[in-house]
């Protein structure tokens, strides 16, 4: 029972009124931006990062996490009602969700999505609860060699991050790696690419890059997009799915939970891929695949379950290894660093209150979302009427103010503006900003760990294979090198089978 003690203490942390409040704020913001097609969770978290600066670390992460999984719920609503996916991870929900709405079963679709999301999210938290202590028990065996192998694995996956074109992702990742080299060499004290400027002596800070590329870049890019006018949504009645619907969807929910859980853990995976993979799987398994695209309940329940499961399980590599699996997790990583918490295998042991507080807040958050999402659908849809001309300047201002407050540095504000422009141009020319930011984070980890390991090994690279964990990780590295090919195939199949023009437009979003 010793193992359960910290878990229970985590609940004590969550149930503190301020933490509950921030959890609620997080999921509400998450739902709101989930509804808005422009702003994704990565952008929102980037913008709100500095606001968490004066809050307790656990409270801050609870809120930011709430935004992330809350957005998965919000995205569903507009997918079903307006055929307008609020989030990239809800794109596939459009195919059957909107058809169901047309048949007057909008309530059923939303109900199924909510129930699926809740089950998927909860299943992942349970998985996280049991997996984390296992990883943490190896905590002290994680030395420089293991981190080098992990970072290498992460960068490989980042470079092959599915959505955009491979070459462009590779270019973005390479730029990220280059940016990571700026600053004083931590092994020799030599200045690299600082041009004699002390502001750059510690390298470029991660937060301004993220705020620029994801936050400001996204805002600028959205200004260019002409939004479809929000039309009146279909009437939502009877959100409780019928017994037949539930029965039809239950298999999809179960499979979506498992699939989402595993795809979320994989670096480079995440909610979007999980939802697509789940849709493809359901369609393949179905006895009458022709029902898909015409309002099949499994086509809503599966992907919606999977995206929530993946959103939750992607916290596993971050909180247990300190490796962000996707762009949003890279931002969480940044948020923790701002708070002076370095995520890694030691986190569970050194800061159990924070770890279990955040993990357990997800149970509460999912319950809050389940309660809110159905009755409040009408209100959330109204958000779509807020014009970009109002939303954009306000968010841009918050971003810049926030950037200043972290280090009281105008230099950081300049960085945000510069990277905002970079992010905008990247999106405009079809480059994913995700690989850049992730490679930036992992690049400095890889460099310092690799050099540190080589020092420890006396310069002998075969040393990596003498340690069981690093040897295993390097083997996985080789194995995983083949996996993206298979996954792209899967994803391609899904997109090919659907002739929805929205897909291409939305999938550029992180």
């Amino acid at each position: 029972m010793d193992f359960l003690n910290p878990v229970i203490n985590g609940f004590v942390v969550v149930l503190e009124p301020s933490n509950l409040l921030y959890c609620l704020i997080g999921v509400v913001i998450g739902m709101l931006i989930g509804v808005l097609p422009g702003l994704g969770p990565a952008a929102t978290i980037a913008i709100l990062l500095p606001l968490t600066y004066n809050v307790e670390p656990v409270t801050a992460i609870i809120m930011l996490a709430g935004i992330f999984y809350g957005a998965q719920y919000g995205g569903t609503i507009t997918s079903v009602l307006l055929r307008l996916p609020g989030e990239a991870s809800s794109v596939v929900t459009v195919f059957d969700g909107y058809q169901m709405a047309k048949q007057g079963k909008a309530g059923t679709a939303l109900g199924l999505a909510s129930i699926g999301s809740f089950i998927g999210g909860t299943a992942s938290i349970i998985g996280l609860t049991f997996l984390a202590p296992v990883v943490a028990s190896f905590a002290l065996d994680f030395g420089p060699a293991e981190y080098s192998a992990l970072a290498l694995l992460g960068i490989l996956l980042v470079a092959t991050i599915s959505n955009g074109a491979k070459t462009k992702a590779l270019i973005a990742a390479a730029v990220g790696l280059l940016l990571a080299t700026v600053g004083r060499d931590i092994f020799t004290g030599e200045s690299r690419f600082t041009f004699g400027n002390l502001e750059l002596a510690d390298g470029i800070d991660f937060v301004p890059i993220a705020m620029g590329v994801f936050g400001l870049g996204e805002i600028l890019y959205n200004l260019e997009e002409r939004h479809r006018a929000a039309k009146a949504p279909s009437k939502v009645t009877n959100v409780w799915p019928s017994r037949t619907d539930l029965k039809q969807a239950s298999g999809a929910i179960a499979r979506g939970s498992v699939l989402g859980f595993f795809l979320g853990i994989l670096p480079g995976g995440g909610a979007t891929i999980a939802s697509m993979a789940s849709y493809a799987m359901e369609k393949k398994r179905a006895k009458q695949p022709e029902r898909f695209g015409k309002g099949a309940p499994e086509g809503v329940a599966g992907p919606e379950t999977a995206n929530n499961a993946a959103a939750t399980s992607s916290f596993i590599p971050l909180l247990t290894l300190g490796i962000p699996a996707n762009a949003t997790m890279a931002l969480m990583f940044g948020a923790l660093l701002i708070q002076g918490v370095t995520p890694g295998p030691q986190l569970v042991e050194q800061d159990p209150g924070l770890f279990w507080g955040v993990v357990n807040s997800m149970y509460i958050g999912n319950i809050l979302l389940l309660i809110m999402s159905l009755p409040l659908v009408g209100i959330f849809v109204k958000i779509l009427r807020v014009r970009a001309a109002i939303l954009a300047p306000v968010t841009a201002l918050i971003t810049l103010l926030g950037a200043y407050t972290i280090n009281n540095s105008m230099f950081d504000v300049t960085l945000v503006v510069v990277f905002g422009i970079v992010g905008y141009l990247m999106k405009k020319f079809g480059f994913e900003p995700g690989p850049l930011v992730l490679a930036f984070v992992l690049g400095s980890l890889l460099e310092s760990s690799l050099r540190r390991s080589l020092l420890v090994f006396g310069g002998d690279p075969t040393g990596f294979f003498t340690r069981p964990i690093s040897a295993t990780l390097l083997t996985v590295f080789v194995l995983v090198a083949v996996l993206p090919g298979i996954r792209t195939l899967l994803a391609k199949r899904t997109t090919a089978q659907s002739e929805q023009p929205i897909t291409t437009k939305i999938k550029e979003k992180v």
Partner: protein
Amino acid sequence: MMHFPSRRTVLGAASAVTLLALTACGNVAGGSTDSSKYPNGPVSLTVGQAAGGSTDLIARAISEGASKTLGAPMPVVNKPGANGALATKEVAGKPADGQNLLLVTASLVTITPLAVTADEAVNIDDLDIIAGLSQDDYVLVASKASGFNSIKDLTGAGRNITFGTTGVGTGSQLAQTVLFKQAGVKGTDVPFDSGKPALTAVLGNQVEVSTIQLGEAMPQIKAGKVAPLLVFSEERNSFLPDVPTAKESGYDVPVAQYRAVAAPKGTPKDVKDKLLAAIQETFKSDSYKEFNKKNMLTPKEISGEEVVTQWKDYAAKYKSLVEKYDISLSGTK
């Protein structure tokens, strides 16, 4: 890389704006001439390290006490960058009216210059030191798996020993490289980003020994997970009375982290006196004493002049040690 050309101009403009904003509250012509009115508005205390670290905590403890006596708020401003050089250069460039103070660390003045280029180094003569604060000791700890329980075990091991440091140009690195040279032990210097990862590396036996600040190491020492071999202070540390000093063990390598409050060069004497009085008042308070104890800091409440002399002595000593043993802190052997 298109952002580089514009950087300097924007930076200049930015600091000009900050300056304007800060001087706006002290809107007296010449500022320094009217020092009887000091403090004129909030007195900012800039810290060159991120919030939450030991330097930051000390700054907050000082500001809490001194602001009461001064009768003006004393906000702590974190401006991390280049080990604190960034904050130092910024405060040194502010008007010398006592409204902008700096919490300066000794290693930045005494050790970092040995590892970085001259134009990145900080010169203590650019500042007026108001008061010395405390001493933060370094302790050499060994992992369980290394089997070292005393410094003799280490020097007698007869093999190459990996040692973790808290970074290039830190006291941790200097203390260990000099110690290893003096003891004639072969060692590999493995720099980490700060004390915490260096300690973790010892716990996981990634490196055999490491030198970190006492406050950080103490919980693991008490838990028996790492063995303290020696402290680098000149006298035994009161929190670790059974652990010998390097000096007792026959090594001439006195290293500790010291901290002091500083103001821009040329701050009027009566302003400095007021500040000193406020800081000394803080020293007397129970809460500050308690703070020092809790963070394993040894009070070193000396005058500004003494700080300058001592730090310059240390800087000279370290320079000669490094030259004598032909040590390069930048890892190029």
